[in-house]
């Protein structure tokens, strides 16, 4: 997983490099167009186009049947049943290409998430840095702690970041947290020294568009899958994950600033909307029916 993530990170950093100095919408238009082309290509090759065409014709026929025989309950009922059967067939034919399209799309979305989902930190912004200790950390005996059991940790902050609070220890969650203030955004690395080990977390803010992740994962495979943007923490350390709060980014389109809504990041709204629009616009050129 780590190797795959590393390769994908490099690939997407390279692919999106030309768009880093442009508005997010520009990159998203290109990415959506490429995604639409890719999906059309895959759909055409992995789907039963003739079957889909036939199912659609049967649905249309059923609708006409209802219009023509709207005084015959039996005929309407039979047409409805036919439409339902054709719909199920249509869904079955559509599912097969989805099995080919979705897995790579998930990896694409995972990478794009960290390029477009989080806003560039600005001077004056505040964020919470949180280090989660692994279960049983205290048994290792390598971490100095206060009489109350609070692990001792010191922050090594780059210029441009300031800790506004002392470390807050929540034993039930095994977390140490600090509130940080951004004085000068940049591509920064936050260091947390615990015992003789230094744990690092990136906090990038030099450009509006660049790879940013709220989580540096630890050993958890799921965390590594969901947060592929940073390499995992050392597996022999006492930390399970390190997080920073990042504000969601908006995407400015002409006449419409798209914002995160109901948990859906703004970029994703734009990406899927544009992908659908491009897919519809190009489907005849690719000779695809769906």
């Amino acid at each position, binding site marked *: 997983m780590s190797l795959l993530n590393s390769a994908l990170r490099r690939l997407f950093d390279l692919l999106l490099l030309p768009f880093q100095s442009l508005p997010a919408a520009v990159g998203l238009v290109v990415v959506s167009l490429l995604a639409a082309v890719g999906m059309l290509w895959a759909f055409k090759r992995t789907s039963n186009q003739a079957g889909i065409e036939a199912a659609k014709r049967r649905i249309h026929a059923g609708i006409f049947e209802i219009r023509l025989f709207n005084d015959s309950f039996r005929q309407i009922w039979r047409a409805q049943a036919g439409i339902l059967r054709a719909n199920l067939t249509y869904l079955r034919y559509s599912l097969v290409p989805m099995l080919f399209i979705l897995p790579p799309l998930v990896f694409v979305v995972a990478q794009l998430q960290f390029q477009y989902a989080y806003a560039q930190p600005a001077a004056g912004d505040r964020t919470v840095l949180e280090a989660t200790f692994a279960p049983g950390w205290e048994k290792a005996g390598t971490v100095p702690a*206060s009489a109350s059991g609070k692990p001792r940790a010191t922050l090594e902050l780059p210029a441009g970041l300031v800790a506004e609070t002392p470390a*807050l220890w*929540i034993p039930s969650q095994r977390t140490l947290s600090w509130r940080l203030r951004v004085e000068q955004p940049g591509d920064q690395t936050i260091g947390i020294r615990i015992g003789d080990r230094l744990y690092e977390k990136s906090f990038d803010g030099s450009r509006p568009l660049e790879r940013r992740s709220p989580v540096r994962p630890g050993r958890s495979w799921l965390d590594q899958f969901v947060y592929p943007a940073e390499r995992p923490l050392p597996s022999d350390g006492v930390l399970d994950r390190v997080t920073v709060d990042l504000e969601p980014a908006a995407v400015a389109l002409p006449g419409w600033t798209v914002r995160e809504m109901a948990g859906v990041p703004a970029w994703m709204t734009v990406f899927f909307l544009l992908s659908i629009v491009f897919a519809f616009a190009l489907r005849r050129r690719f000779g695809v029916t769906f």
Partner: protein
Amino acid sequence: MRRDGHRFRAAALGVLAIAAVLPLAGCGGAGEARAPGRNVIILGFDGLDYDLTAKLMAEGRLPNFSRLAESTPLQKLGTSVPPQSPVAWSNFITGTDAGGHGIFDFVHRDPGTMLPFLSTSRVIADPDAGEPIALGKCQIPTGAGEMELLRHGTPFWEKLERAGVETTVMRMPANFPPSGSATRELSGMGTPDILGTYGTFTYYTSELFFDDSKITGGGEVVEAWPEEGVVASELLGPDNPFTREKTKAKAPFQVHLDPDEPVAKLVVGDEERILEVGEWSDWVPVSLDLGLCGKLMMTPSIPANARFYLKSVAPEFQLYVSPLNLDPRNPVMPISTPEDFAGELAEVTGPFYTQGMPEDTKALEGGVLDRTQFLAQVSSAYEEEAAQYRHLLAGWKGGLLFLYFGAADLTQHTLMDTLDPGHPRWDPEVSPKFADAIPNAYARFDAFLGYTLGHMPKDTLVVVMSDHGFTSWRRAFGLNTWLWQNGYLNVTDPQAALSSKLFGAVDWSATRAYGLGINGLYVNLQGREKNGAVPESERLSLMRELKAKLLATIDPKTGQPAITQVFLREETYSDGGYRDIGPDLVIGYAKGTRGSSASALGEFEPEVFADNVDEWPGDHLMDPDAVPGILLTNRPLVRPAPTLSELHWSILAEFGVESGAAAK
């Protein structure tokens, strides 16, 4: 700062919701009209006193005010009768007096029930609503109440809009719900919090013997104990409309305390803040949960915003939570015109206090915030308003721009003893430490004026005004006690009267007059009051008798008259259609004396006179001639404005709208 761990997974699931979300996205702005003619900016500073302004100008502490005064001298601006903010601003808004706009006091009374109610707005029930439809433990309301603005008359901005002038009216008092007639407006004083009150804070504390006797409204105290380093409690919202049993909308929260340091993490829903002791949070979004019934009704929660102040974590836990303000991005009541204007402001300048009077004087009076903490809170509210103004001024296309600031008013109400060594609350140890608070509030406005002068379009007329002045409030006058002692009001049981509220022990059959509100005195009139005892034929003679006696009342401590003017309704107010809802007499207390707070709500005290030792040492609800406001402009007005009502017409005259005496 939001917990972000699940955002990506939520986002992936949210893909399916995109189709539903998309239709919401195509909202476009309305076309914009260009304002013809002149440009006017009005800076409405509530409570700026003429004498104090002149003094600070002479001391060189208000250089921008002085700059303006070089072209037109600082002028007294006659205030309203009585000089209460909702009345005064309504005079300015409508160009008439209370007889024309119907606002006579902060509180009015319903003569049918003798109960007081807030004068500027009310909730009106849906006339078509029936009983809620029961569904097990849930219910479906069959109608929703609506807020109604009780201030009548035509606002000056409506007249200007009709003449094609674009107007922006920010936080005008007595304008909730917003009139809807300005191009842009944000409601101000009178706008409630999420509970429908003028602002109710909550104080969470582990103190066993916290004295909450000074919290007489506008605040709640909740016991909150740390258990294993965590304090868990709830923010309480309004009643849940979807449950048959009476329950509250609520938002659970936790405060995780560090075992060693004075720092804590606040967790409210998905929101987290780390606060050190002595720190204020920014605005924290709060979703007040409406439970399963709310979810079934597709309204799972009520959005609100709150600010937190961590006073202490040890030895006692003490947390102040501001009144739950409306979320300007999704307000549950109308607070702006157009409706999304408040949200647009929040997007650009951040969330803000939507409650009409953000300065939490109740928390100061209740001993929950001290003066330093209160001033910090006042300052943050001011900064929000200033940021919004800078944003609006930057994009202003001309026309009329009005902005209201209330910070000086409430700072003077709560800290006037710091400028008056003769005040009963003067403490030689404490008061001088805050002696700069009020001058600083004035100086802040001066800086604001300076910013305006430096950033406004050329040839803009700037009007700096206040609705009334201010003075030290040393002596309290118990009007209802005076009426009782002088035989105009009778009680059934003298002992019970001293502890009863809202005229609880009054013998109405033997009562001829009663006081309600700070300045209002009503005749207990037959056919009007619920238990009226005075026939209409005796009303006027009784009013004249009361006036004479009140004017002859001498404060035994000062040897001076306690009351310098008494206004008879018919002699004072125009007959603009609403005169009859006002008090029969309005009391103009002598400078330094004011009606007692207890009497204003139908209570009695052992003595008529008392020293004012409340955390409210300054006031203006006195003789209007004693507390004029100010007027300052960067060039002479086309039409002079000696009073607030006249200023309404002067502003119109600047645009060539309804100018001249005939307009009135």
